């Protein structure tokens, strides 16, 4: 829910409470005022009636307001003046309605009369209706104006906020971007923008440092390795070396070579994780890569008598070509390395999906664990244990998914995009 919508929710609840309370108070105060007015009118009528009775012994018809009634009864003794409320049958409306009656006594020419002035209290009902109507109208008006105000606010006042949000949304650290914004009049937005600018500035600097570090680390480690390997190769040419020394040297050479490969693979992994390979905008076709790779691996496939079946369409994900190359390479070499002699590899490529299936020995752990670095099943000493980790990382940074399933003797690696 948007912040403005949440605020609106509270505003509506509060205004409904306040307006209801207001309406009740309004009703009672108006009711009280009207009550007072009715009493005053009754008293005025009393004065009129008394005057008429004392001075003229005849009462004119129009002496009271319409709807009020006057009743004269002859009594023996006068009583106390009283103000009562009772329901009387109204002949016009044919129903019982509330009346207020003022009862007083007057002596005319030696005879006591009880005078009852009745006043219809129908206004109370009307008043209630009027109050409810008014309040409802105010509520509706308030709601409409709040909604209008909010939509205007979100368009006008919140515009810089949404702009910042969009900029952050599309932010890519690989581009070494520092986000800057025009000056804002709203303090909070200005603070936010400044924080974002500082933050992206630091981020870009850190990213740059990291990139430089990986580059330097590569240089620093590769150079001593190059020295070691070149010295070993020089030594091999020394004819005075004994066979046992040559064998030891050969083992040193193998280990150093392995170290060099490991270093390169780890650096590649770091580079990919640092997103130093930005994907283009167009999908690239994996077909030429797959075909080229299969040609390169032809010897190995033949030697191990592996049957390769392909069903490929010219399609592919949006990806840096170098990464696509590494991905395809790692999936195919994995399918060869862990295959059985005389096994099969199925490669299926169609819209949104690349599936590499190969026969192989069953694995005894959760297939997904095979994506961990240095995870190897069995004793393939030549493997670095980084192939699938690299493939997974490539897919992750590019927004594709890579899954590993087993199905009997089949190992199925699926890339979806």
């Amino acid at each position, binding site marked *: 829910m948007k912040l403005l919508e949440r605020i609106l929710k509270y505003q509506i609840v509060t205004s409904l409470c306040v307006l209801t309370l207001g309406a009740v108070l309004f009703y009672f105060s108006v009711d009280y005022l009207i009550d007072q007015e009715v009493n005053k009118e009754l008293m005025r009528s009393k004065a009129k009636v008394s005057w008429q009775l004392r001075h003229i012994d005849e009462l004119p018809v129009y002496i009271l307001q319409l709807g009020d009634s006057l009743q004269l009864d002859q009594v023996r003794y006068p009583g106390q003046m009283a103000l009562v409320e009772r329901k009387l049958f109204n002949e016009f409306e044919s129903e019982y309605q509330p009346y207020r009656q003022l009862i007083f006594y007057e002596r005319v020419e030696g005879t006591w009369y009880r005078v009852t002035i009745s006043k219809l209290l129908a206004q109370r009902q009307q008043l209630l209706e009027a109050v409810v109507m008014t309040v409802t109208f105010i509520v509706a008006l308030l709601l409409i104006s709040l909604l209008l105000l909010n939509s205007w606010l979100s368009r006008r006042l919140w515009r810089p906020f949404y702009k910042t949000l969009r900029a952050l949304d599309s932010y890519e650290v690989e581009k070494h971007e520092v986000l800057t914004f025009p000056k804002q009049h709203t303090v909070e937005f200005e603070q936010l923008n400044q924080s974002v600018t500082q933050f992206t500035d630091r981020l870009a600097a850190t990213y740059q440092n990291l990139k430089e570090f990986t580059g330097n680390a590569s240089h620093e480690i590769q150079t001593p390795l190059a020295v070691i390997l070149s010295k070993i190769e020089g030594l091999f040419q020394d004819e005075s070396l004994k066979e046992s020394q040559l064998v030891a040297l*050969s083992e040193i050479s193998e280990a150093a070579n392995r170290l060099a490969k490991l270093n390169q693979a780890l650096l590649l992994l770091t580079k990919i994780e640092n997103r130093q390979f930005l994907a283009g905008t167009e999908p690239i076709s994996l077909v030429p890569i797959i075909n080229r790779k299969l040609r390169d691996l032809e010897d190995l496939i033949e030697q191990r008598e592996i049957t390769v079946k392909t069903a490929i369409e010219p399609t592919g994900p949006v990806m840096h070509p170098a990464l696509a190359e590494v991905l395809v390479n790692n999936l195919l070499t994995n399918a060869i390395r862990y295959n059985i002699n005389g096994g099969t590899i199925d490669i299926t490529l169609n819209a949104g999906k690349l599936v590499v299936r190969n026969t192989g020995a069953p694995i005894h752990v959760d297939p997904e664990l095979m994506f961990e670095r240095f995870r190897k099943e069995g004793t393939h000493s*030549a493997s670095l244990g980084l192939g699938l980790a690299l493939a997974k990382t490539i897919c992750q940074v590019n927004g594709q998914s890579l899954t590993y399933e087993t199905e009997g003797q089949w190992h199925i690696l699926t890339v979806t995009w």
Partner: protein
Amino acid sequence: MKLLLIEDEKALATSIQNYFQRENFICEWAADYRTAVEKINIYRYDCVLVDLMLPDGDGLDAVRELKRSFPETGIIIISAKNSLDDRITGLNLGSDDYLTKPFHLSELNARVQAVIRRRTFQGSQQIRFGKIQIDPQEHLVMVDQQEIVLTRKEYDLLVYLIANKNRVLTKESIAEHLWGDDADLMDNFDFIYTHIKNLRKKLMDKGSPDYLKSIYGVGYKFSEQ
């Protein structure tokens, strides 16, 4: 043949120099950018090996300099940087090859010879070794004037062996030359043995002496003795 090695790491430079001296190449060494540019402008070289990261400059500038003064000189970049950008920039500037550190000296040697062959003799030079004669342009191999049909890998292997004649070649360096990064797919080096065996058989069938010696535990040596 005269080479210039631009490399700031002394130990590596010495190894490379020693290796090429045995090949009867003159291999001069420049440890920094300034010396390199001086040498480039004074002497003529058949091939220059350039390291990209130098203490006082960028190796790519040396490549530019060289391309301006002596465009016919062969250039091989040897760099610890395996970044795609540098590789592309280097090759676009006109360098002939790009080799990532660490590399096998035998590999570097084979590449230097290929560059010199291409540059100096416009690729027309025949490779000769004993009774074997190779036409690199046609990929044609003859023993005693009889043609031998080799597979692509066998051909590559033979050229590599001859380029590094009279030297001990490790199995890893052969595997890497033939299969590049896929070399580590081979769990043992039996696979090289198959190719070596086939090549040796094809050569000997046409009357070539057995030039290939197996060095126990290490690799192979191609020599006339």
